[in-house]
């Protein structure tokens, strides 16, 4: 097995507004919001009522289908509001943060003298379990199953992503603690990918198998790593953890505290001073965005996450549970005269159909949210394959999802994929089809029918 992974198919989307490598402390957010929709497939059961006081790390709700999985509060404070939607579905739990933060003490944890069950129980009880996700289905890992391997991407190749080499610097102790713990949860290995040209904090750690990756995005996606190292077969499970969440897990093991602090990149062409911020999960986005040159009534799209896979949030929205980047780009809700046939220099294109981005491969673009065309049936073929490095037929698997043919979905490799693997094909799609949504729905059908 080679430790060098080179990706040829893919696309680096170069955008204006990369975060400068300087970290500020964000203004401490007065509010903190937990949104159950961040945890796909989880039906929350509340453990607290409005007005209750919680410490940071104290459970707020649990998963109805697996009561052991607890979701804890990132801050200490008072439950301010529980927002509900249709059929009383919980949309968000909003907390007012205390000025002085207090933490629930889970006690220091000795990984070396513990077995897998003990580690699992500790992570579940302390609220760190939701950071562990699984494939198939790209949902929070089922703690009752044992994964054949655990995969971590230490290299973010997505457009305007936070540079993990930078944000994880100095966190070697936490990372090592987390990896030691995770290593005991699998019979296989803990695979970590790092950039070939980078200086990753992972490279000095033990207890993991290091892979250097190079090539265009999605070389840093964990899905690419899995596909190249050890693809998921039917009946098998692998787990994935985001690199930045290892720090929270490690911190918990070392100190006993659930410390939801995270270094987040604030990036995008609408930001005047793109840079890094130290903030907490669930913090109000407004605390970072408006002090940095974004006009309050400007026509911008604020995204919790990167431009390919992130979620659109309102200015009073919050940093979601898994993201370490906030991107702000201009909205594109305007018409463009003869936009469909005039030569285009300021947008990215894979073709050369009077689009000239191929002339300037190193130019950074200022893209907006316009779809550049309307939704159509699948017509063109062959262009998804150019940006899709997995050994899977992208068009065919998307179509199988659309007509819900479970046998075909399984045969074509549905157990191996997550929606984010189809972000680039969605970006280049001439027919403007929602690939990630199609895959997500397909995975949900499989969970329901096959489990």
């Amino acid at each position: 097995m080679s430790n060098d992974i080179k990706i040829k198919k893919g696309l680096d989307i170069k955008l204006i507004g990369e975060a400068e490598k300087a970290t500020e402390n964000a203004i401490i957010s007065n509010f903190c919001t937990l949104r159950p929709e961040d945890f796909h497939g989880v039906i929350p059961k509340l453990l607290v009522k409005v007005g209750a006081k919680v410490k940071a790390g104290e459970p707020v709700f649990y998963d109805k289908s697996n009561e052991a999985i607890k979701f804890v509060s990132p801050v200490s404070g008072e439950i301010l509001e529980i927002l509900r939607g249709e059929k009383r579905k919980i949309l968000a739990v909003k907390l007012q943060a205390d000025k002085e933060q207090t933490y629930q003490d889970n006690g220091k944890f000795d990984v070396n003298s513990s077995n897998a069950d003990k580690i699992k129980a500790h992570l579940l009880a302390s609220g760190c379990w939701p950071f562990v996700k699984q494939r198939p289905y790209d949902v929070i890992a089922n703690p009752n199953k044992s994964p054949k391997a655990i995969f971590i991407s230490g290299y973010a190749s997505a457009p305007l992503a936070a540079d993990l080499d930078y944000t994880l610097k100095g966190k070697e102790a936490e990372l090592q603690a987390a990896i030691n713990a995770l290593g005991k949860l699998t019979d296989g290995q803990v695979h970590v990918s790092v950039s070939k040209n980078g200086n990753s904090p992972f490279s000095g750690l033990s207890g993991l198998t290091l892979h250097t990756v190079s090539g265009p995005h999605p070389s840093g996606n964990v899905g690419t790593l899995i596909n190249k190292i050890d693809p998921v077969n039917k009946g098998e499970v692998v787990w994935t953890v985001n690199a930045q969440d290892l720090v929270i897990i490690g911190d918990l093991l070392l100190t006993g505290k659930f410390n939801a602090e995270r270094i987040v990149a604030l990036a995008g062409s609408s930001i005047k001073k793109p840079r890094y911020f130290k903030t907490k999960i669930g913090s109000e986005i407004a605390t970072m965005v408006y002090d940095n040159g974004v006009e309050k009534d400007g026509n911008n799209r604020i995204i919790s996450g990167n431009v390919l896979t992130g979620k659109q949030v309102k200015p009073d929205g919050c940093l979601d549970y898994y993201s370490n980047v906030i991107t702000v780009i201009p909205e594109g809700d305007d018409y463009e005269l003869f936009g469909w046939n005039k030569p285009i220099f300021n947008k990215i294109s894979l073709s050369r159909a009077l689009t000239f981005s191929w002339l300037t491969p190193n130019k950074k673009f200022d893209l907006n949210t316009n779809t550049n065309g309307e939704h159509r049936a699948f017509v063109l073929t062959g262009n998804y394959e150019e940006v899709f490095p997995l050994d899977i037929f992208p068009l065919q698997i998307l179509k199988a999802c659309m007509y819900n043919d479970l046998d075909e979905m399984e045969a074509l490799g549905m157990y191996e994929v997550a929606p984010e693997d189809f972000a680039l094909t969605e970006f280049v799609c001439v027919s403007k089809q929602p690939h990630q949504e199609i895959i997500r729905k397909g995975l949900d059908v499989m969970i329901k029918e096959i489990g």
Partner: protein
Amino acid sequence: MGLKSTLHNLKEKYKGTKMAPAFNAIHTFLYLPNETTHNGTHIKVADDLKRTMNIVIMAMIPCLIFGMFNAGYQHFAALGTPVEFLSWDAFYIGLIKVLPLVIVSYGVGLAIEFLFAVIKKHEVEEGYLVTGMLVPLIVPIDTPLWMLAVAVAFGVVIGKEVFGGTGMNILNPALTIRAFLFFAYPTWMSGDKVWVHGAVERDQMIAAGEKLDAISGETILGSLAQGKEAGYELMDMFYGFIPGSVGETSTLLILLGGLFLIFTKIGSWRIMLSSVIGALTMGLIFNGLVNADIISEGSKFYGLMSTTYWHHLLIGGFAFGTVFMATDPVTASQTNKGKWIYGFLIGFLSIMIRVFNPAYPEGVMLAILLMNVFAPTIDHYVVQGNVKKRMKRFKVKNA
């Protein structure tokens, strides 16, 4: 209020009404819509289907203009009063003969597309933009307009809309239209008269008792199929100064169009290249049979079999079919490996049909239609390769 806001207000007004698809279809030709992304990727590439289709049309425009000149040039040449190729006289004949074909093709086709869009309440998709341009280029110059209208209506409804519209059809709509013309009106569509403007008319005048010479409007393929000499210089064939369907004669311009499609990454170079390889292979096999004296000069297949293998690329509609119709992404193979097989078989079968079907020696139409039908099968086996690999991995693990 500017045009932009006026149209925006109209769009809002029509929203949800039956008129909406029709209005939007016209509106989006003027303005790229103000639609933004919601879920999934927040940014998108610059290309959309309109741009893509537009590129294909641009690649065909030179063929259309050349076809207009050639229509007049062939007409006068056949009358015995030749004119310069690039002359107003030649172009005028072409204009009054070809433009109505274009108008009827687009008029009837788009009317049906709009009708279906309104009935089925979906947006008007761009597929017909290319079909509408292909059709006038692949029909004989003297095709009566009513026949064309009937054929277009048949092709769009049966060839495309019944399958669910753009993106869902199995057969190339332009070729469905062409095949309908051929099979519904065979006496008109085949033979040696319909290819040059005036030939049919002249025949009718002779039949009426006027003392005139008949015009021969035979295509090279027609001549060769009957064992006659081609009667044209090789370079004339390459440049396209020969009788044939309106826009398919100039191999040079088709080649340029093909290169343009490959350069813009809109057309599949795999299909084009493999189709040429397929044609050359079949041509070489036939040449080999002739050289080995298996086919004697008396054979009715001799004429086309003995044609030097690479001359096949220059005559008939092979080049046009390969570049503009075999590459239709909806009806072609959709996998990269499949495209090689699909293209190769189109080239291979085109030449085979040419030789063995002297009644209508243009094989490329039937070859593409046949392979359209088999494209999903080819893809199935290509995809099965990937599926088998996955199964094998699964079995090794669980052995």
